């Protein structure tokens, strides 16, 4: 794992008992993980356990630690990879504390990182309605069942609120749609079994 000088410097501060004893180190590590996971905008550095630490150093350490966490998750780093990065300055206790937090939050962070990036709108649900069309202004005696399908989609390119894709279909068209979705589901099942 390649880390910039600034990140390495920040991690050295964090390893230094002059700035962080083991207890504040533990509190700080948890704050760093939480600041990445939580949806709140503030980073939690106002934690009472951290109030005695110089703010400049605290912020430097926070940036360094969060960068290190993200880089480790991104690379899917295991204990030996993390240890080899930290062992120059960190004692074993601190590596253990960090690693246990890392293990605890890794899955959540992976999900978070996985979802970053552009992808087509994601279908989350479907609503349907069955109508029987009797007549309209142009044709009488239509007498055809008709479905209104409404797909709920999220994460549109605009990043706006959830939207819908609405369309009509006849019974035959709905059978066609379901048939094609079933083909896809069958192929998925085969792919997971092989």
């Amino acid at each position, binding site marked *: 794992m390649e880390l910039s000088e600034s990140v390495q410097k920040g991690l050295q501060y964090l390893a230094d008992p002059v700035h962080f004893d083991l207890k504040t180190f533990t509190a700080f590590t948890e704050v760093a993980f939480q600041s990445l996971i939580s949806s709140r905008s503030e980073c939690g550095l106002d934690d009472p356990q951290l109030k005695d630490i110089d703010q400049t150093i605290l912020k430097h350490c926070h940036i360094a630690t969060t960068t290190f966490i*993200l880089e480790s*998750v*991104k*690379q*899917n780093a295991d204990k030996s990879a993390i240890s080899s990065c930290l062992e120059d300055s960190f004692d074993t206790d601190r590596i253990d504390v960090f690693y246990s937090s890392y293990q605890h939050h890794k899955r959540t962070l*992976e999900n978070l*990182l*996985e979802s*970053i*990036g552009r*992808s*087509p*709108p*994601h*279908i*989350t*649900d*479907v609503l*349907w309605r*069955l109508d*029987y069309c*009797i007549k*309209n*202004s*142009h*044709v*009488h*005696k*239509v*007498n055809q*069942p008709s*479905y*209104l*399908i409404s*797909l709920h*989609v999220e994460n549109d390119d605009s990043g706006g609120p959830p939207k819908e*894709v*609405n*369309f*009509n*279909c006849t*019974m035959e*068209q*709905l*059978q*066609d*749609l*379901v048939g*094609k*979705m*079933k*083909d*896809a*589901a069958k*192929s*998925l099942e085969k*792919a*997971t079994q092989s």
Partner: protein
Amino acid sequence: MLLVLSDEHKEHLGFLHEVDPSVVGEFGRIAVEFLRKGSNPKIYEGAARKLNVSADTVQHGVEGLIYLLTESSKLMISELDFQDSVLVLGFPAELNEVLLQLYLDNRKEIRHILSQLAPTLPQYHNLEWRLDVQLASRTLRQQVKPTVTLKLHLDDSGTQSARVLQTDPATLLHLIAELERALAEAKTNHCRRIMRNIK
């Protein structure tokens, strides 16, 4: 159900009485063609020159036919009702037969054309799908994330459009189950009873 023809409409159609039934057949063909592709006034002028009448007269004749055909098709009137409806025009039997044949031959297509005018949401046309497994991205390496990409083709009054959407395997199964419930609903007693009784 009989068609009620206005006096103006009768007057316009009256012109058909003055020409040969084969010309009426030709006008009928033009009327259906205009319904398919929109009208073309040049044809009126050409026909008017040949028949030695004004272009307006030809136009009224053809448009009268178009209106006769669309109204009867819209109401889906029976063969007998159609015959009775055109009786008021006082045409000879041969001409009435030409009109009836024109109606019967084109009713299905005209109803199809008219049904496209009805207010509706985009109509389902086709679905294409693709399976992917996301393996890595800038922010995260070593992933295994199956995704289903769906391309939904819709038809909005003749204009085709496509939306590319994505979903995950679990949601796909949910969608299938929900839409199968929708299909099953049409076979329930309630729905069948309504559909059988509204005719």
